[in-house]
């Protein structure tokens, strides 16, 4: 009897905790003592999984430097000091904040409930129609946050379906992007005292065994958010990795119907991201990845780039047509 009660209690607690953990992609754990943490550097590539969570709950990512050295960087996704270009504040910002007022289910589970999206007509106090008009090209930004035939809700709804089908949460999508952003943001600060020509310069992240390269370009001024929030953007961020020979073979085999140009487009869509830092915050806060614009962070690209899902899984989830998936706009509103 006691055993049954104890087991039921444990099961209940397990259910409560597993439901409330918004990450569905579990990262491996290790002791921080095993890692050569920045500013320490090593010549040998460490034989630990990256990213990894230390016993003190910090998230470490292995970074490769220009001079072929490695360091573990504390890239923990967390709420930090204010991040506001207008006020010259460069803290981490609210990386874990989700819009609880408009999306209580999303804030709790990291994924939208369709019923909740159907009932959404206001986000951050603005009507979704107004956000949509502002978000279209030549509105609040030249290239727009959604394509002319998309709405803010059709895009959130479409991407929610994709993330849900991958059995991941929006937090799982935002986490690797924030890891990258936190490294970009803080790497230089950590090595600031080092004025030597050999000052380490990060050139790649090692993520789930994959080498992810990047470029960061600044710009003059900043982009205002389409929501009524504090999020601003200024950077042009590029991330990419090489496709493995197995992945190339898979694409050739399963997409033989595509001509070479289309195949190149598909490969590029899978392995390359061009975006700005606003989207990272948007994903975690609203589950918004931007529509089909040049700044879109497609969740399938995130999953492929950072090794969250294999090409076989993504192909299957896209009903055997990743090309159609990438090139089809979201035009269905959840009503």
């Amino acid at each position, binding site marked *: 009897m006691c055993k049954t009660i104890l087991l039921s209690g444990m099961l209940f607690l397990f259910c409560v905790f597993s439901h409330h953990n918004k990450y569905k992609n579990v990262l491996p754990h290790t002791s921080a003592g095993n890692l050569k943490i920045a500013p320490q550097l090593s010549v040998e590539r460490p034989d630990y999984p990256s990213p990894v969570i230390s016993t003190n709950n910090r998230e470490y990512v292995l970074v490769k430097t220009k001079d072929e050295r490695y360091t573990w960087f504390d890239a923990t996704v967390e709420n930090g000091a204010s991040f506001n270009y207008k006020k010259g504040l460069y803290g981490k910002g609210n990386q874990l904040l989700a819009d609880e007022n408009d999306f209580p289910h999303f804030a709790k589970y990291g994924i939208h409930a369709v019923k909740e999206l159907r*009932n959404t*007509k*206001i986000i951050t106090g603005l*009507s*979704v*129609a*107004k956000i*949509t*008009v*502002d978000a*279209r090209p*030549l*509105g*609040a930004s030249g290239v727009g946050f959604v394509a002319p035939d998309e*709405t803010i809700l059709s895009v959130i709804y479409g991407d929610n379906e994709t993330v849900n089908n991958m059995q991941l949460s929006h937090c799982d999508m935002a986490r690797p992007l924030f890891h990258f952003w936190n490294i970009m943001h803080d790497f230089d600060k950590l090595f600031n005292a080092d004025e030597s020509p050999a000052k380490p310069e990060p050139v790649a992240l090692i993520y789930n065994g994959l080498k992810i390269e990047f470029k960061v370009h600044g710009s003059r001024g900043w982009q205002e958010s389409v929501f009524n929030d504090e999020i601003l953007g200024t950077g042009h961020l590029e991330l990419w990795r090489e496709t493995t020979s197995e992945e190339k073979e898979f694409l050739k085999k399963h997409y033989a119907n595509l001509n070479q140009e289309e195949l190149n487009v598909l490969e590029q869509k899978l392995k390359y991201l061009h975006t700005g830092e606003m989207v990272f915050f948007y994903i975690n806060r609203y589950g918004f990845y931007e529509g089909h614009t040049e700044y879109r962070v497609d969740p399938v690209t995130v999953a492929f780039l950072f090794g969250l899902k294999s090409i076989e899984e993504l192909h299957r989830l896209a009903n055997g047509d990743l090309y159609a998936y990438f090139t089809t706009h979201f035009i269905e*509103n959840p*009503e």
Partner: protein
Amino acid sequence: MLISRPILLKILNKMKTWLKYLLVIILSYLVIPAFCQNREAEIDSLVEKMRTVHKDWSSYSEALVRIGEPAVPALIENALNKDLKPWNRRISMVTLNNIHSALWVEPALQILFDEEEPEENRNRVTAGLVGFDLSEVKQKLWARFVETENQFYKSNMANLLMTADTALAYRAFFELYHTQDGHIRRNALQKLVQLRQNEATNWYVKALVGTDWMTANLAMDSLINAAKPDDRQLMAAFYATETNEEVKWRIVYVFGERKNIAYIPFLCQALKHNSWLVRTEAAVGLLHFEKDLVIDEINSLQTDSLPGVRENANWVLSRLKASKF
């Protein structure tokens, strides 16, 4: 101090009034020239630095702006001195613009109309002329507006025409409104309405149906806050067959935000619209009214044949019931 304050006050109290006046006069002859000499020396030093400084000029400029009028003649010399580097002339012009003295008007006009001056300098001085009566040079200003090709310079000339000749200003802004976009078009709309207030609704409706997002937003905000907009024009634009869905959305947004009960039937009708933008905005617009004012109209929509209309009506009702009203 050689003499402490209480002792000094005691002495002053015992002095006769005429003696006090005499003391003040003697002191003013001694102190004021010394103060003036110091001020002149400070101006000379700052203006001299402005002749050669490259970066970090703003602290000198700010100090001169604080001094104000007494610094103007020396700065004008810098601004007109073609032997100085263009940069140093330009920062003197900026400082003069910020002081905004009437003494700067004539030299600024001289630079503005001097064809041998670089275009950038000619444009730079316009900020210092804003607000002054320029009616005597109105034709020259118009000629300059016509002649310059740079859209920003044109816009600055149009701003100067506001205090030179309002008919010419209207002509200039009319042209800018129809040929430019973004900030320039938005500014042109503001000025056109300022010049002809009786045409306000016309201009706003025109801007609302235009393609420029920034200008259309200004028109929307202005129509929301206007005391007596001509609603018939807005309605006509809404029902016109050629009006696209974004424009219809803007009109619904204006009616919702104006919070006038006369618009409730219009907003309820808009709940049935086939455009997602329009019906969604109508639902949100209805939340601006008290429940009792809306409930009868909404109830009748709950039996509508279209499920989307019923859902929208239900959404409005549930939100109104949950609100404080």
